[in-house]
C-alpha cells in the first residue's frame, strides 16, 4: 500500500514539474527512422541536432525520437512533438512525408521540415534534401582508378530515385576513367540491417568485385571489406574507424549547417517555407579524407570535388545514354530537375535490372 501512495505522490509531483515553463526560446525536435547509434543516416542527423545545441546553448532546447517506423506510428510521433511545445520539427525520412503534411495542417504555428520528400501542402512545411550523388561521381572515378578487376559492387537499399541517382552517378564517374568499367548491384531492401548488408558484401566479393560501395546505413559492409582485404567507400558518416586500411573516402551528410540556419530563422522570426536541394557548394555533402590510394588518384579526386563545388561541373551532363542504349542527354545537355527527382532508369553500363 505504501508503494501505491508513493506512486500517487510521485504522479502529483510530476504534474507540477511538467507544468514548469522551460527557459529556452525555441524548441527544435527531430524524428529519426533508425537508431542514433547506426553510425549512418540517423547518426548524422543527430550530429546536426547536437550542433544546434552547441550553437545556441540555452536559447534552444532539442528533443528527438529514434527508430520511429514509417506509417501510422510516425503520425503519432510527429503530433506528440507538435503538442509538446516544439517550434520546429525535422522529420528525417522519406516515409514521413504524408504524416508531416497532415500534422502541419493541424498546427499552423509550428514549422515542419521534411527531409527527402516533395510535398509542401501548407505554408509551414519546408522540404530539404542533399545532392549525395555528387559524391558518388567522385567515388566512381576513384573506383575505376583503384580497382584491379574493373568491377565494383554496390549495396543498394530501395529502388527509389535518390538511390538510383547514386548508382548512375557512380557508373558515370567510373566510365569517365575506364569506359569498360562494370558495376554489380545488390538490393537489400532495408536501410539498416547489418546482417543482410554483410551478406550482400560477401556475395559481391565472391563474384569478383574488389571495391564495395553502399547506400545503406550500417558499417557492416566496411567491416566485411576490411576482413577480405579489399577497398570500400563509407556511407553517410566517416567510417574510417571501421576500416582504417579499407576506406577510400566516404560521403558525409553534414546536416549541421542547414539545421543551425533553420533554427536561427525560427529564432529571428524569418522562417519561410522553401524547397532546397543542397550539395557540395553549400557544405551539405562533404567527402571524408581521401585515403588508401595513390597520390595521383587523390589529386584527381580533389580536382573533381573542387569542380563540382564551384559549379563548373555537374555529374549528369550529356552525352549520356540510358541502359537500353537510347540517348538520354545530348552533348553538353544537363538533366532537368523533374527527371532527376523521379529517376527510375539506369544509364548505360550498370550490370543489373532495375526492380520495377
Amino acid at each position, binding site marked *: 500500500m505504501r*508503494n*501505491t501512495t508513493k*506512486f500517487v*505522490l*510521485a*504522479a502529483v*509531483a*510530476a*504534474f507540477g*514539474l*511538467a507544468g514548469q515553463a522551460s527557459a529556452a526560446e525555441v524548441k527544435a*525536435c527531430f524524428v529519426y527512422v533508425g*537508431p*542514433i547509434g547506426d553510425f549512418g543516416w540517423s547518426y548524422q542527423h543527430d550530429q546536426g541536432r547536437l550542433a544546434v545545441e552547441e550553437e545556441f546553448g540555452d536559447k534552444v532546447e532539442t*528533443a*528527438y*525520437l*529514434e*527508430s520511429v*517506423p*514509417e*506509417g*501510422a*506510428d510516425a*503520425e*503519432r*510521433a510527429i*503530433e*506528440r*512533438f507538435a*503538442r*509538446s511545445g516544439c517550434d520546429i520539427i525535422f522529420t528525417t525520412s*522519406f*516515409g514521413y512525408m*504524408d504524416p508531416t503534411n497532415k500534422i502541419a495542417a493541424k498546427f499552423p504555428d509550428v514549422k515542419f521540415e521534411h527531409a527527402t520528400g*516533395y510535398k509542401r501542402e501548407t505554408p509551414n512545411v519546408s522540404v530539404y534534401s542533399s545532392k549525395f550523388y555528387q559524391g558518388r561521381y567522385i567515388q566512381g572515378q576513384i573506383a575505376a582508378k583503384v580497382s584491379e578487376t574493373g568491377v565494383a559492387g554496390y549495396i543498394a537499399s*530501395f*529502388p*527509389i*530515385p535518390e538511390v538510383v541517382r547514386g548508382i548512375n552517378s557512380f557508373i558515370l564517374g567510373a566510365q569517365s576513367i575506364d569506359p569498360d568499367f562494370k558495376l554489380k548491384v545488390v538490393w537489400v*531492401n532495408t536501410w539498416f540491417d547489418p546482417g543482410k548488408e554483410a551478406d550482400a558484401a560477401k556475395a559481391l566479393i565472391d563474384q569478383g568485385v574488389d571495391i564495395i560501395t553502399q547506400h545503406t546505413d550500417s558499417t557492416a559492409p566496411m567491416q566485411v571489406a576490411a576482413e577480405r582485404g579489399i577497398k570500400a567507400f563509407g556511407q553517410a558518416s566517416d567510417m574510417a574507424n571501421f576500416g582504417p586500411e579499407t576506406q577510400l573516402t566516404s560521403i558525409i551528410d553534414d546536416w549541421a549547417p542547414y539545421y543551425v540556419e533553420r533554427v536561427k530563422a525560427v529564432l529571428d522570426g524569418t522562417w519561410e517555407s522553401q524547397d532546397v536541394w543542397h550539395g557540395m557548394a553549400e557544405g551539405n555533402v562533404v567527402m571524408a579524407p581521401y585515403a588508401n590510394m595513390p597520390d595521383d588518384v587523390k589529386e584527381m579526386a580533389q580536382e573533381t570535388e573542387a569542380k563540382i563545388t564551384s559549379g563548373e561541373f555537374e555529374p549528369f551532363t550529356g552525352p549520356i545514354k540510358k541502359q537500353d542504349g537510347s540517348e538520354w542527354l545530348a552533348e553538353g545537355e544537363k538533366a532537368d530537375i523533374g527527371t532527376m*527527382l*523521379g*529517376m*527510375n532508369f539506369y544509364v548505360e553500363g550498370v550490370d543489373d535490372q532495375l*526492380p*520495377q
Partner: protein
Amino acid sequence: MRVELVRRPHPSALYGALSPFLALLITATLGAIMFAILGKAPHLALYAYFIEPLTEVWSLHELLVKAAPLILIAIGLSVCFLSNNWNIGAEGQFIIGAIFGSVLPVMFPEFRGPFVLPIMLLMGILGGMTYAAIPALLKAKLNTNEILSSLMLVYVAQLFLDWLVRGPWRNPQGFNFPESRNFHADAVLPEVISASGRAHYGFVFAIIAAVVMWYILNRTLKGFEIRVMGQSPRAGRFAGFSRAGTILTTFLIAGGLAGLAGISEVSGAIGQLRPVISPGYGFTAIIVAFLGRLNPLGIVAAGLVLALSYLGGEAAQISLGVSNKVANVFQGILLFSVLACDTLIHYRVRIAGRPSAEGQGV
C-alpha cells in the same frame, strides 16, 4: 540442488484477480530502480509511461489507434491457440488482407460511393482468410507443421506487397517513390469522433469481435469444440468433432480478423499502401493474446496495456531524453512481471535436493 515449479492444488482466487495489478506494481518498482540507475528521476519516468499518455484526449485516441490492430489480431490468434493450432503468420494475413481490401481504391479509383468501404472491408477479411487457409489446408491434408508454413508465408506477403507498391500499384503522381496512390475520401475508414482525434472504426470492430468471440467460445457448441480439440484431440474425436474442420475454422477466423485489422489500418490510419504497413503487429499480437490469457475480453485489456507501453515509451523519450532501447527494456520488464505473477500464482517454487515424488513438476 534443483529448482522446480510445483502446481498449486488450489491457486488463490484473490491473487488471481490481483495478478495484473501486482505485476504493474512490480514493473513500476523495477522500472523506478532502472531509471534511478540511469540518473533519471523515477517518478517523472513512471509518470511519462503510465499517466502522461492518458492525460490528453488526442493521446487516448492514439491509444485506440495503436491497440485496435493488436486486439483484432490477438482475438483471432487466441482461437487458434486454444485449439492447439499455432498460427504464427498473422502478420502475413494482415498484409494480404490490406492488399485485397485495397484493390478497389488503388485499381479502380474512379469507382466511388457508399458501397466502396463495405466492399473493401469484406475483401480485406476474405484476403486474410484466403491466406490463412494455405497453412490450414497444408496441416489438415498433409500434416505440415503450421508454425513453419504460416511464419514463412509472412515473408512472402511482405515481399509481395513490396513488389506491388514498387511496380504495378505505384502511385502515378508519386515521382516513382514506392507507395500506392492515396485512397479517395469514400475509401477511408472514418474517424469515430473526428473533432477530438483520429481513432477510427477499427477499434469498434475490435470490441465487437471481442464480444462475439467471447460468446462463441463460452456459450456455443463450436466454442466447446475448439477448446476440446485443443486440450484433448482424442476426446474430441470420440465426440465426433472433425480435426480438419477445427483447423480450418480456427485459421479462417484468425485470418479473417487479421485481414480486417490490415484493411482497417491501411484505410483508417495510413491512407495508402506503403512497402511496410505494420511494425510487426502480427507478432506483437501473439504476446497480447497470451497476456490476455486467451480470453477475448482479457485481450482487449492486454491490447490497451501494450499500446500504452508504446505511447509511454515515446513520452519518456521526449520528456526524459532516454533512448528507445530503455523503452523496450521497460516493456520487457512489464511482460516478464505479468507472466511471472501468473506463473507463481498457479505454481510454487520448490528447491529440492532430489526429484520430487509428489506433485507435478514442470
